[in-house]
């Protein structure tokens, strides 16, 4: 029988919230382990989302709004420290009907009530901000603090910082049982081993209800909400300056047109409640709806080339945001959010640490802990790319020509902490394969480099977190 390891905190789930909590706890002397069922971090909702770091999402005086408020001003600094792409582009919420225009006032008041900058604009003023919005625009709200972020790089960076500071990250380990022991301990049993811990942080996203039940926690009613997305080519992305939102209705936040940090444009998400968290299929009817909605907001999207469609499930449920000590198990802390996980992540991590301390965790901040990661220069965005080959001659070896990713960057994806485990993992960390040709030119090279990096051959190299190239 294997000796169970002792930890102070086990975090279940390495999505953006679990990874953020791990990064924050890694700055203390607590002994922390992260368990993730998938073979990479940032799968599921943290992989498939709009990549918006919102400044305003909902009603004032909620914990979620407080966390967004606390997180939003810090993105530039945090992203510089963690080497994550971020741009504060600002957003325009536009009204296309008199009915929508009527709702703008109350929405603006709500945003102001949240302490967020929000300005009502006439149609002419809105066009000055973003000339590509629909000529049917009657009025708009400008939200200058909205930003776009690379949610994959953010999650990987949180996880890297955590690992750099000594957190154990266990990938491909699904929690199957959590057993209370005598004293203050629980044993967390995975499909591949067991470990002992004092506290459990439930950051399992769509799996949060199952983890709470295993831990003897409060009942959580939740279900996967599938969102589908369309990615438009960067030749259109070069023209779009702002995030464009439809006017919120009481039921939905509607659809978005989002310039990504990669230069492409993301449309979506849709919202479809169902019961199969592994169903990430797209369908042509929904894709047509996304394209039609985008054309209403930004007509020029009609001429843009869709380069990719995808879907992901976010955790919907009886509570869209749950961050608290469990009502039944005082050593279980929940941290899930249906749609704002990225946007609350820095402050949510801080609050989770506070709650753990309140629950009895003795964790002192460690002055020697790292709070930043070494930046990897990127060929595509480097100010002076000609200087890069002196750092590493492999910068001259372009692997992904569309996104201009070099062999040097791909090599780093395997050498850094939390290395890529699949071709998809390389894409998450470097952007290779994201572009307009979707890997037609580069995936052979990337599969070769992934085979080298993960010590396997062409058939058994992982294309995604779950599947290999060969059968």
């Amino acid at each position, binding site marked *: 029988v294997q000796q169970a390891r002792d930890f102070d905190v086990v975090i279940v789930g390495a999505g953006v919230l679990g990874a953020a909590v791990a990064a924050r706890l890694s700055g203390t002397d607590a002994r922390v382990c992260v368990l993730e069922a998938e073979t990479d971090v940032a799968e599921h909702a943290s992989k498939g989302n709009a990549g918006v770091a919102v400044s305003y999402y909902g009603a004032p005086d909620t914990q979620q709004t407080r966390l967004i408020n606390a997180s939003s001003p810090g993105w530039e600094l945090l992203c510089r420290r963690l080497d994550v792409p971020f741009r504060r582009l600002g957003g325009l919420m536009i009204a296309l009907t008199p009915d929508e225009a009527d709702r703008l006032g109350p929405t603006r008041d709500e945003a102001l009530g949240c302490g967020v900058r929000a300005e009502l604009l006439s149609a002419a003023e809105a066009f000055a901000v973003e000339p590509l919005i629909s000529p049917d625009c009657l009025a708009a709200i400008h939200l200058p603090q909205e930003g776009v972020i690379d949610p994959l790089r953010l999650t990987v960076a949180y996880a890297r910082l955590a690992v750099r500071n000594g957190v154990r990250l266990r990938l491909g380990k699904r929690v199957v049982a959590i057993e209370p022991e005598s004293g203050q301990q629980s044993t967390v049993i995975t499909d591949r081993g067991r470990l002992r811990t004092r506290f459990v942080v439930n950051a399992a996203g769509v799996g949060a209800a199952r983890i709470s039940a295993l831990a003897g926690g409060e009942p959580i009613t939740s279900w996967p909400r599938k969102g589908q997305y369309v990615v438009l080519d960067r030749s259109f992305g070069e023209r779009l300056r702002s995030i464009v939102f439809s006017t919120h209705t009481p039921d939905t936040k509607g659809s978005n047109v989002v310039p990504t940090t990669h230069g492409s444009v993301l449309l979506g998400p849709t919202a479809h409640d169902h019961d199969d968290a592994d169903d*990430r299929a*797209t369908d042509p009817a929904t894709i047509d709806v996304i394209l039609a909605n985008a054309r209403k907001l930004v007509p020029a999207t009609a001429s843009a080339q869709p380069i990719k469609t*995808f879907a992901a499930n976010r955790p919907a449920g009886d509570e869209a945001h749950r961050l608290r000590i469990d009502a039944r198990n005082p050593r279980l802390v929940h941290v899930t959010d249906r749609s704002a996980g990225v946007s609350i992540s820095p402050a949510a991590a801080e609050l989770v640490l506070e709650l753990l301390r309140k629950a009895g965790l003795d964790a002192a901040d460690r002055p020697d802990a790292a709070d930043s990661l070494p930046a990897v220069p990127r060929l595509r965005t480097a100010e002076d790319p000609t200087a890069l080959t002196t750092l590493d001659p492999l910068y001259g070896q372009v692997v992904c*020509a569309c996104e201009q990713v070099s062999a040097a960057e791909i090599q780093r994806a395997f050498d850094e902490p939390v290395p890529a485990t699949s071709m998809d993992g390389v894409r998450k960390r470097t952007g290779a394969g994201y572009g307009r040709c*979707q890997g*037609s030119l580069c995936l*052979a090279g990337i599969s070769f480099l992934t085979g080298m990096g993960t010590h396997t051959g062409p058939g058994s190299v992982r294309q995604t977190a779950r599947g290999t190239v060969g059968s």
Partner: protein
Amino acid sequence: VTAPYLVVGAGASGLGCAAALAQRHPVELVERIPVAGGEAGWRTAEIQALRVAAESRGVRLRLGCAALRWQPGRLLIAGPGRIEWIAGSTLFFAGGLRPGTAAELGLSGDRPAGVLPATVALHLLDSGARLWSRVAIVGNGPWAGQLAAAVQATGGRAVSVCRSRGSRPWADACVDQARGFEVVGRDRVRALRVDTPTGVQELGCDAVLLAGSPQPVRNVTGALDQDDDAVTFVQSLDGRSVAERARLGREAATTWLRQNGETR
């Protein structure tokens, strides 16, 4: 010193274009891989003759250099150990062709492992390893037949699925007049569901290989789509033979020279 004309892509089109331009002006030809020839490969006498013709007219070849960014008057290129801006007044782009993507083909459904562009599958099968036993090849682009042969050579079976009708003798089986394609499989692909006039067919398979109609590769920042006096897209979608593509490249060059008053 006159800034040269820059041609990107040393396949048949780019070689033809560069040779024609070089009769009037200094030309530099930038090629991503370390040999000339592109799709056609570097070994054939035909390609070698095109290369000799270009070089004998003074075309300077920069092999193993990827073109990255175009700004008026200069192009950023990257090669092993060296990234540099090179001067050029005009960019002619002949970056080759690629198969249509899943989005361009209209694939929906799951996004599992085992769905790959034809060009990638061809590279992977080059090793001779048996990767798949039953593949669905979607589309009838120029890669499809070659790909089927490579799958068959490793002991696999290739089913061809197309929106159109037509003879594809290289396939082990054909599905015609497809109206939609749905990938099935959560972790790895296990089937392709094809919507046809006679109903939905579910083809069991362990790979879906995308071999749609050829699309021009265009990936230089600053010259993604716009065709103007400074940027000309030479790559033609027509031209199945090396000679034909070289001729189309020459024609694109002479047309440009005529329109820009460079004829004698």
